């Protein structure tokens, strides 16, 4: 297989001959349209056809260097990147599925490989047999959803193996009733840019590999039992095998979930039966239930669906839960890292007539890393009024530190939307204020104004203002300036224990997008 790949690769590699982007672009445009004129191959009465799209994107960023205005961008700090994206998707070609997304254009000047080239940016090829009971799919740089375990995901949907510069294969059997078995294999090139090999994956120098086998047995009305085994080989996060067991039981609308996972830092071939530690039932009762779990394991359980109903008072939902992450358990693929033990109960009250919900989560948590334990209560009250105004009030009470409280006000109508969140945290004995104002307004049918203002713990500020011109859904022009990019920065004020400070990036940005065809990007 590798041999064939090398041969194909050597052919494609010839595209690195220094020709201008115009030539390359024209060539591939012709190739693209020639290829998709192949739709004429299908008879006129065939329901199979191809959808295609062409997108031109141009992004010019000018970095500013002083603390405030004026417009002090310099040409040395300007970055231009543009691309033509060509997409094609087969429609009604069952049992097959194909999607290809190619790109050409100037890439980011920050990269060492600044050049014009054409490459395969994203795509998949698949087949579904036996009324989709058996499927096989090869994917490149696509977001894949593979998490069969709910409480302890072996791999998260945001894992680089399933979203980033990765290539992989998925195969599975799902009869829709009682069995679901799937296999996923992914390789990632973490070092080289996505267009390094003409967009094709570099099997010779992978940044890491990931394999996952899921097997689930389901009984619709009774419950399910699942087994997961994954192997990760990575220079960054090391080698390891992760086992996962999940079970669920349903009775009278109540669902009990329990999941157990164990991480062993060896490769799959070195694994034997003794590698698994398993539960130490003799340790039960020494210092709570957590003593029965080995340090390299994680356990989580939840009971869902316990509900009290009253026609006047409304319904109250209770979700008790427990989770244990051992001190030597680390599963970055599943975004489970911190070592802790926590027991909690989540209750949610909904009023039958008023648009009001009250949610309380109370728990007791102990962190092995910081060697501290505390009790906490997190509650939120959400009220939605008919005028489009929503008020959220939240309180985070944590043992040992002062309470954090937050208020979110959201105004939403057909012309504008604004969310203002105000949060006060205890920071080494001082009260610190965080504030986020994020919203947009349609100035007219064509113009839209957006703004994001963020204050982090009374000390750091970020802002971004952008103006969008959208005469039709096929054309977009946007100019923005500010000290951060709100679209790429995660700001979590409502949920997290602590607010997050995004990276400062003073810039002025001009963005244009022209879209033709029938596939949305």
């Amino acid at each position, binding site marked *: 297989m590798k041999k064939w790949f090398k041969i194909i690769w050597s052919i494609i590699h010839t595209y690195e001959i220094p020709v201008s982007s115009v030539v390359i672009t024209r060539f591939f445009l012709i190739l693209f349209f020639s290829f998709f004129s192949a739709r004429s191959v299908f008879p006129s009465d065939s329901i199979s056809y191809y959808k295609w799209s062409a997108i031109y994107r141009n992004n010019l960023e000018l970095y500013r260097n002083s*603390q*405030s*205005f*004026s417009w002090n961008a310099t040409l040395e700090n300007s970055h231009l990147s543009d691309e033509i994206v060509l997409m094609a998707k087969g429609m009604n070609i069952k049992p097959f599925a194909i999607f290809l997304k190619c790109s050409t254009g100037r890439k980011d000047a920050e990269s060492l490989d600044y050049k014009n080239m054409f490459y395969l940016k994203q795509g998949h090829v698949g087949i579904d047999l036996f009324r989709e009971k058996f499927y096989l799919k090869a994917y490149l740089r696509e977001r894949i959803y593979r998490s069969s375990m709910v409480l302890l995901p072996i791999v998260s949907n945001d894992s680089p193996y399933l979203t980033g510069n990765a290539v992989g294969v998925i195969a599975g059997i799902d009869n829709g009733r009682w069995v679901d078995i799937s296999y996923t294999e992914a390789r990632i090139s973490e070092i080289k840019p996505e267009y390094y090999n003409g967009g094709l994956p570099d099997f010779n120098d992978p940044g890491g590999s990931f394999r996952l086998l899921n097997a689930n047995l389901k009984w619709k009305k009774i419950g399910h039992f699942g087994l997961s085994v994954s192997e990760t080989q990575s220079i960054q996060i090391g080698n390891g095998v992760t086992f996962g067991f999940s079970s669920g039981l349903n009775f009278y609308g109540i669902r009990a979930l329990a999941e157990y996972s164990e991480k062993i830092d060896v490769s799959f071939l070195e694994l034997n039966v003794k590698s698994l530690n398993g539960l130490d039932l003799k340790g039960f009762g020494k210092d709570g239930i957590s003593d029965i779990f080995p340090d390299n394991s994680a356990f989580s359980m939840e009971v869902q669906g316990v509900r009290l109903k009253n026609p006047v008072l409304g319904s109250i939902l209770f979700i008790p839960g427990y989770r244990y992450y051992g001190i030597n358990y680390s599963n970055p693929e599943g975004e489970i890292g911190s070592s802790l033990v926590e027991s909690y109960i989540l209750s949610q009250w909904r009023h039958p007539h008023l648009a009001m919900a009250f949610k309380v989560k109370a728990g007791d948590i102990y962190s092995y890393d910081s060697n501290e334990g505390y009790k906490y209560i997190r509650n939120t009250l959400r009220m939605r*009024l008919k*005028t*489009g*105004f929503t008020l959220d009030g939240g309180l985070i009470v944590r043992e040992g530190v002062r309470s954090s409280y937050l208020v979110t*006000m959201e*105004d939403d*109508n057909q*012309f*504008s939307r*604004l969310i*203002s969140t*105000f949060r006060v945290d205890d920071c080494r004995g001082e009260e*610190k*204020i965080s*504030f986020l*104002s994020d*919203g947009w*307004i349609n*100035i007219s049918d064509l113009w839209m*104004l957006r*703004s994001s*203002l*963020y*204050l982090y*713990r*009374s*000390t750091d*500020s*970020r*802002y971004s*203002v952008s103006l969008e011109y959208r005469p039709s859904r096929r054309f977009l022009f946007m100019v923005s300036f500010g*000290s951060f990019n709100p679209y790429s920065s995660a700001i979590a004020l409502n949920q997290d224990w602590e607010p997050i400070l995004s990276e400062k990036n003073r810039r002025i940005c001009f963005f244009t997008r022209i879209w033709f065809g029938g596939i949305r990007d």
Partner: protein
Amino acid sequence: MKLEQISHFCGRYLLVTVVVICVLVWPGSTSGYTLQTTMSEAMGGTFTTVPGEVSVIFLNPAAISNIDKSLFYLDYTNSKIREVKAAVAVPLENLGVGLLWYSRSNEENEVVDGIAAGLSKKIFRGTPDTYIEVGVNFRIERFAFDFYSGCSSCGQTRLYDSDIKGDIGIIIRPLPLISFRYVAEGLRESDKLDYDSDILGEKSGRFGATLFLKENLAISWERGYRNNPGINHYGFCLKTGVPLELMAGFSEEAISGGVRLKWGFMWASFAFSQDGGGDIHQRISFEIAPGRFSDVGTE
């Protein structure tokens, strides 16, 4: 002389006076204490004149004639500089008359007290929500501070000094969609109150514009010439579907925000803004109008 004649007289000479002074003092370029109100602080210091906003009479005397009902305004902040402000404004025909009082102090026990009388007139009315307003304030300001003579037996002496100042302002709203404004503060140059204190205001000039969109959003920009090369302020105020307004703004990469609750005849506002060194200014204010004034078509 009838009130109408007074109004006509004031309007004619106010316009001439304001235009001449605006040209002469454009722009001011000194530093000193930046006067703020709750609304202006919430909107990034834009000193804006959004519909229904009354506190702006502290910042631009031309806005006094916006009111159509008598009202009382109280503003308080307790940050490094403690400040209390109060105002009474009364509409008279096309005129607006206001009486203002303010007091601020810092950690060095320095105090500035001031009382001001303001007069404003809407000198031109076009189609609905288009007008030109001019206004003027006369202020008497007193500065109190502790003086150390150097003599150990003498101790410290409390000294007082006072001065008369003036502010002028103009608001031009050529279209319901947009308004422009200019204000010059502390016009009269004097060797009095020439102290190095962070609570003393000095001569300055500000100009800006406000864009009114969809009847519920005001976006404001202002440029203040307190320090060279001038500082830009940006802010907005959004009327929500409930009697609540949300505000936010930024200036010099410092964020500010606030809310205003409109509850019957009393409006309450809260604002905060970021200061250097991790400090946060907080400010509250109340506006009480026994006969609630209309916020439509005013600025």
